[in-house]
């Protein structure tokens, strides 16, 4: 690894830019810049503007103030969606601890950990939609999970997992834990092998067992990367549940598993309520921005606290 300071030291130009750049070089970045603005920024701004109108693509969209927001928030099914989101947020610790645990197990004492890492990593490479469709079959009333339960005499537990309002959310949590495990293990394993081994050796000399090491070495050492992982998951819960929900349950039964991104899709492209969909998009945008700001503030506060103590 090259030290950044070395380059900066030898070359002040890396910091201040090359002296002889000419304006036409902006052509290098122009395609990406224009496309980013046209494809992502302008549509997002449009979503904000249209949320204040009775948006009807292809026709007049009269301004109606906050009516869309009132309608969206007054809808009890939308409140159910927000409660579902809360439920999935509560699963973030599970989605974090499981890959941490596997990374810690694979760190040492297991021959050929690469095989296990590959097996765990593969599902996070495969499309979420494809995995969702596969799990519909596995969890179906006559599927292998229920048949297995019946075979071992636990037939009373068998249920249609994805159509039962009591089980649907926990089952989705488990499926997503399964699917995100690979990325988590890869990231945490890399961080573990990159961190100083002396701490682990010292802990071992002191006779700390696996759980002691996990609690007092692994978690503190990986703390920065765990925070990034948690931040990614927090956003994911609000923003990229769509393929899972669409393939597993279509939001059902009732609204028991609908998420915000799924509801936006439904409002606009199934029910044709583009105005309400726009209001829901803005709510999503506010949540994502708020979450990011909380992350930044927490990081700043922690830094200050560290400097002071």
């Amino acid at each position, binding site marked *: 690894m090259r030290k950044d300071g070395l380059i900066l030291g030898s070359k002040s130009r890396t910091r201040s830019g090359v002296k002889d750049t000419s304006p036409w070089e*902006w052509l290098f970045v122009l*395609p990406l810049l224009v496309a*980013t603005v046209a494809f992502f920024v302008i549509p*997002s701004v449009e979503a904000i503007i249209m949320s204040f109108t009775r948006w009807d693509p292809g026709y007049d969209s009269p301004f109606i103030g906050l009516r869309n927001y009132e309608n969206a928030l007054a809808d009890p099914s939308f409140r159910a969606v927000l409660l579902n989101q809360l439920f999935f947020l509560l699963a973030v610790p599970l989605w974090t601890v499981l890959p941490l645990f596997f990374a810690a197990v694979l760190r040492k004492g297991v*021959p050929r950990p690469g095989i296990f890492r590959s097996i765990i990593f593969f599902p996070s490479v*495969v499309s979420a*939609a494809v995995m969702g469709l596969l799990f519909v079959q596995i969890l179906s009333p006559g599927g292998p999970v229920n048949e297995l339960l019946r075979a071992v005499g636990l037939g009373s537990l068998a249920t249609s997992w994805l159509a039962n309002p009591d089980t649907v959310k926990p089952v989705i949590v488990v499926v997503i834990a*399964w699917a995100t495990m690979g990325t988590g293990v*890869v990231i945490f394993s890399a961080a573990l092998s990159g961190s100083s081994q002396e701490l682990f050796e010292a802990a071992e000399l002191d006779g700390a067992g696996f759980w002691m090491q996990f609690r007092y070495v692994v978690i503190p050492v990986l703390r920065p990367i765990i925070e990034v992982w948690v931040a990614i998951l927090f956003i994911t819960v609000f923003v990229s549940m769509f393929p899972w929900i669409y393939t597993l349950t279509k939001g059902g039964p009732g609204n028991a598993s609908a998420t915000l991104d799924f509801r936006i899709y439904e409002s606009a492209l199934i029910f044709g309520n583009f105005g309400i969909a726009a209001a829901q998009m803005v709510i999503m945008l506010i949540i994502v921005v708020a979450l990011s700001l909380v992350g930044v503030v927490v990081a700043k506060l922690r830094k200050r606290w560290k400097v002071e103590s």
Partner: protein
Amino acid sequence: MTTIAREHDAQKRDVTGASASGRRRQPLGRQLRTWGPVIWLWVAMIPFLYPFMFMIATAIRTPEEFRQNVVNVIPTQVTTEHLVNAWVAGGLGEAMLNSLYTTAIGVVVSCLLATTAGFFFLRNNSKPAKFVRVAIFASQALPAPVWLIPLYVAVSGWGLSNQLWFLGVLYGLVAARFGAYLMYAYYRALPSEMFEAARVDGASTVRQFRSIVLPLSLPPLATLVALTFVWSWGDFLLALVFTGASGNPTVTVAAATLVGQFSTGQQSQAAALAISMVPMLIVFAFAQRFLVMGALAGSVKS
């Protein structure tokens, strides 16, 4: 037969013995302690392997056997009926081509835009360039469900909404913003004397890009290609919105709409899922290293 088997066994013992010769003399308790976690780990792998085994078994076994036996994943009566069903009647063959087409466009677009933009960010550190760099990177925080529908409405007006190449370009753009950052981080670590020397020799900016930067970009480009491929191939939301109603879907959308078309719907769908995974499996087999690097870059960047 038995002698061969025994010889084979002996060989195997020898091979494993080479690495564990020290261990063999250890007491049983110690052995259990070293092998315990391994056995335990293989048990923990069952949930990760079983769904894929179930998928393959469902895709290739006869309907009769499937009806009798759902849990067991070792098929005895094999048929290609479901694979053919999915491929031909389910339109999966066409959908695979559509996905290949969009994914290829996505990969090319993301590589082109990421390398050029990354190079620009390296050369130009002026205030406006810095702002553009940060803004493009930050635009990734805009969630797809927010920009997707307004974009879809807008491009429907121009007749682009059911064009596969447009979906491909969109994939490329989604990946290029991350890619530009990946490239920039990589270029920054290159020795700047190289560019200095090229400049002294009178190489133009374009020449520097083509003859120095591009050939050196292969490692991060491999990561970007692998990531873009996996993202585009696996995408569902954009593909559903843009191709769901066009009758010309990508593979994930086709697989999702396949069920219920046939009497053996579930098995045909399992076949479709298995087929759609083949390219993923190939990428995984040959480029796992780059996918891992991509996952790492994605988590460290912020």
